[in-house]
């Protein structure tokens, strides 16, 4: 019995030895080939116009230098506007080549893993994940031609591209843009509008919100409705978000006639909705932001839960020209009550950049990034339930813009 034990002890020792070796090997492999499992991703632009991706686990406190700790994204330039981040991967359409690229931060560099060609999809109007593996994109303006949509399976980077059946622009309009897509069961709603852009009249939009309802996945138009109270429903959602579904399944969206988007500033910015049990716009619901105590145009909207939303608006008394609109810090944040239409201003520093992916909702907290141009580059934490605002992570270094903050993994 004892003899057998001794023999077994020897075998056990060698098994443990092998296991230890394997453990050592696997950890050393991780170090040279480390793919981050961090929770959050930042996209930063430095004062010398360099782009950085930085990932972190905590937004709540402390200080970090994302330029030193992050990975430089050398090209394409200014791509933060069109980026998607999902399940550890980064996606964008390369504007020059029109390849939809899948990449990842591996160790100290950004690696492009795969791509698929999507002709005419540089600078897409809209791009979002319909489900964990499928990206739905709407292409850029193509004049008086049908717009196109693409569905990309990001697991194998295969794509289907087809034309959208939306009515083409007619004079005086020469272009159109799609601002949102919203799926429910076997139907798809798209918000869009028409634009003109010429030397005589400059740039502007139809003074109308258009919504098309289609069968899905057939993409056949079932119904088109128009609302003349505002224009430019939705946004380039990859740059800044302004649509959401609430707990009841009601779909809300912001219309943006302000000068940075629709350029029909005499029309109001407003929140519209399509109710969960209805097929058409709830025309009785029109939360007019411009006539509310906010008194300004807005471009960003995020759902806080419990019929409250966070709105990102401009201050017309703080800028006189279009140039000042984008150079000066004049952006504010409000909590708006979607039912009572009450508004509550958040006591944040004036912010810069008319579009940024700057709000991340996590449970009952909203993380808001501010970059005021004076070195106050911070993550703030807003708790809607108690209307409390505290400062979280501070970002140091030569940062010009905190363009994106989002979850790296769902």
């Amino acid at each position: 019995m004892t003899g057998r034990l001794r023999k077994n002890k020897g075998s056990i020792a060698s098994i443990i030895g092998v296991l230890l070796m394997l453990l050592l090997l696997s950890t050393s492999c991780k170090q040279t080939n480390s793919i981050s499992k961090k929770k959050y991703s930042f996209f930063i632009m430095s004062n010398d116009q360099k782009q950085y991706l930085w990932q972190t686990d905590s937004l709540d406190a402390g200080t970090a230098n994302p330029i030193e700790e992050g990975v430089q994204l050398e090209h394409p330039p200014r791509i933060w506007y069109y980026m998607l981040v999902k399940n550890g991967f980064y996606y964008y359409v390369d504007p020059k080549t029109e390849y939809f690229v899948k990449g990842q931060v591996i160790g100290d560099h950004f690696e492009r893993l795969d791509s698929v060609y999507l002709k005419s999809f540089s600078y897409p109007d809209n791009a979002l994940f319909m489900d964990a593996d499928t990206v739905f994109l709407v292409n850029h303006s193509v004049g008086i031609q049908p717009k196109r949509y693409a569905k990309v399976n990001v697991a194998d980077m295969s794509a289907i591209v087809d034309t959208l059946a939306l009515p083409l622009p007619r004079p005086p309009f020469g272009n159109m843009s799609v601002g949102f897509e919203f799926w429910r069961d076997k139907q798809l709603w798209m918000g869009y509008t028409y634009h003109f852009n010429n030397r005589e009249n400059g740039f502007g939009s139809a003074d109308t919100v258009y919504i098309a309802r289609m069968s899905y996945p057939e993409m056949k138009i079932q119904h088109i409705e128009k609302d003349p109270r505002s224009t430019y429903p939705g946004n380039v959602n990859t740059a800044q978000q302004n649509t959401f579904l609430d707990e009841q399944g009601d779909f809300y969206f912001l219309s943006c006639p302000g000068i940075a988007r629709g350029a029909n500033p005499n029309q109001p910015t407003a929140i519209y909705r399509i109710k969960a049990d209805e097929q058409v716009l709830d025309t009785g619901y029109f939360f007019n932001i411009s006539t509310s105590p906010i008194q300004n145009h807005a471009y960003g909207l995020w759902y806080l839960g419990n019929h409250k939303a966070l709105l990102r608006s401009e201050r017309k008394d703080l800028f006189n020209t279009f140039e000042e609109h984008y150079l000066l810090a004049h952006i504010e944040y409000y909590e708006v009550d979607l039912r009572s239409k009450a508004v509550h201003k958040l006591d944040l520093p004036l912010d810069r950049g008319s579009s940024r992916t700057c709000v991340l909702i996590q449970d009952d907290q909203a993380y808001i990034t501010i970059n005021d141009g004076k070195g106050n580059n911070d993550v703030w934490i807003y708790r809607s339930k108690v209307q409390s605002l505290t400062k979280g992570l501070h970002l140091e270094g030569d940062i010009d813009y905190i363009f994106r903050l989002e979850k790296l993994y769902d």
Partner: protein
Amino acid sequence: MKVSKKLIERYHLGRCSYDEEEAVEQWLLDTQDTPLFPEGILDKETTKVEIWEQLRRDTLQAAARKGKRLSAKRYLKVYAGAAAIALLLLTTLFWNQKPTAISTAELARSTKITGLNTELFDIELGRESEATFDSKNELLDFCGIIKITPKKSMRLSFANFCGSHDELKKEVNVTGGTTYFALDLKNNEHTELLVMDEDLLFELPLLLRNSLISEFGI
């Protein structure tokens, strides 16, 4: 010699004449801007795969297969060519297409802009655009849209003599090496002479920005 897809194909297969090889390698080294892809001319996916394969192969081996003795100069050229391929491949595909805007070199030959001083700045005119440069007052009077990269930091005046509105004028401190777009930003309500740093283009309404991009190939 125009570098075509067929020529690139032959280059990879080692079937080019000496002059043809020189042309392809020169094109690879010269391509500074990432140019637009032409519509429907190439099978981009195929060419992309081919070029990736080229990258992975030892370019010196490819040259050796041609059965030629490499001079040190050509050695360097081929290697530099491969490095250029690698660099360009980072943005995948490329083809040298002239942008619709008119470049400085062409402007110097044409009469589209008078008084142009190429020592002071590089300039491109958009479609249906014109400009006059008054070197004494350092005033650039233009109509339409221009893309300008000053070679040194200076205070430059811009004026916009077109359109049915009063002449707009603006003085701007421009930084050497930074690219700006000067345009007349107009809508129903408002006209503004905008001199905009290229890096802030994302602030323009989407359609305007996209039309600038397609006009200038940026």
